[in-house]
């Protein structure tokens, strides 16, 4: 999933300062799963903003709505009946959702309420970590199902650097050395010959090196 984290209240207060009526929009997809911007968080943030605004001696009306999927134009249309009554939108979706609202409602300012972080997985309750950088040319088949692009701090493609210690990355003990993990996996799978092969310099074009990316599926595109 795409993970996100709520921005500090102070930053959000700065955004909404000029407005009396805003629409706070959540998303029922990734940001719900990572507890950053789903229905529950929309409710919590709305009351938090209310209290903070009241405390500052002003007033604000906050409408709440959570879309099924904010990165999808079909669902964003649901906001049409609500949009005229507000001066601005605050989105609790990832950056894709924020931009979809900006695209659809040309005359409404839209502000992000979360910082979009990374594509990751849940490690345990309340802990998510990065797993994929969307390089566009997946090499997990060569690396035992563990990604050195996303999980090695130096994106090394040919083995661990000299700072790998006791299974930890040189940047800190709370980060696993991706290559220590890969090596253990390759051993367990009886595929250590995979390590010996040199992985040549990567073509970063599919990974964003050639500019903003797009997928066009001729069989589906209208």
């Amino acid at each position: 999933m795409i993970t996100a984290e709520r921005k500090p209240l102070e930053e959000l207060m700065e955004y909404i300062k000029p407005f009396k009526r805003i629409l706070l929009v959540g998303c029922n997809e990734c940001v719900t799963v990572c507890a950053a911007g789903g229905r529950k968080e929309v409710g919590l943030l709305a009351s938090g903003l209310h209290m903070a605004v009241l405390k500052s001696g002003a007033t604000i009306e906050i409408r709440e709505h959570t879309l099924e999927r904010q990165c999808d134009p079909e669902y964003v249309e649901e906001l049409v009946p609500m949009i005229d009554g507000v001066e601005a939108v605050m989105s609790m979706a990832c950056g894709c959702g924020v931009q979809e609202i900006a695209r659809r409602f040309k005359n409404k300012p839209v502000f992000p309420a979360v910082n979009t972080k990374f594509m990751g997985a849940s490690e345990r309750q309340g802990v998510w970590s990065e797993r994929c950088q969307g390089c566009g040319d997946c090499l997990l088949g060569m690396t035992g199902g563990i990604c050195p692009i996303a999980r090695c701090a130096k994106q090394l493609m040919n083995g661990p650097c000299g700072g790998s210690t006791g299974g930890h990355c040189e940047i800190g003990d709370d980060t696993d050395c991706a290559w220590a993990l890969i090596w253990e996996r390759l051993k367990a799978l009886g595929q250590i010959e995979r390590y010996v092969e040199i992985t040549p310099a990567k073509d970063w074009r599919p990974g964003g090196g050639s500019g903003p990316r797009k997928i066009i599926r001729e069989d589906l595109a209208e």
Partner: protein
Amino acid sequence: MRTESKLEKVLAAGHLAVTSECGPPRGSMADKVIEKGKYLHGVVDAVNVTDNQTAMVRMSSFAASVLLKQQGHNPLLQMVTRDRNRLAMQADILGAYALGIDTMLCLSGDHTRFGDHPMAMNVHDIDSVQLIQMVKNMRDEGKFQGGAEIKNPPKMFIGAAANPFADPFELRVLRLAKKIAAGADFIQTQCIFNVDKFEQWMEGVRARGLHKQTYILAGVTPIKSVGAARYMKNKVPGMDVPQEIVDRMAAVPKEKQPEEGIAICIETIERLKKVEGVAGFHIMAIDWEEKVKEIVERAGLLPRPQV
């Protein structure tokens, strides 16, 4: 001979090679580079010039290498993949070779987290193995990484690093093999304090015949104080300083500690000379260049061979 590199000539003639390093200053002082270099004249076969080591901004390795070249040194240009993409690195390799620099060391570099610009983006367009491959293809195939032909290809003698003390230990020989397969002509190792472990690694190296496919220069560092020994033992990732070294430094009074550090360094070199497959020494006397001559001399490695 693949290149005109003095280091290659020394190694090819079968001499134990000696290299040392010069860390460029954190400012644009040419005189500082020249001053550091003075201590190494006639003492070493090549001078490593570090590239933003520990991820701290310094005068570029390229510029400091040129300054040293002008003073008659044989600079060994270090290049990390952390700070530049493949275009910038190839451009510098062409420029360096055009200015008479024919020896380099290919590294990934310390993470920016440790330096004075932790907010910077790490580049890592390619990794150190891919950098070795790129420099070799530039030299032997006369081709840029992108495939186009190079006019007057740079003939670099290509070095790589090896750390026998990092984990997973069993992978360390294979990692070396990979660097050699990519094109590493010579290797400079991490500082060796734990000679037993280094010997164990070298057994693995010899078992695969890797010492015959590349020249391995054993890295050594004189320790200035017991504080420095403890710091390296506890704080530097991938360093292996045995407790007995710390204890030995702690057992002598503070003013005698530098002398003790140098004695340990020389004893280490003597032990390493007996290890089959060691082709020379890389003496990393960090901000202590003035002591390199004494170490080389007392280790019986002076005068340097004329090749």
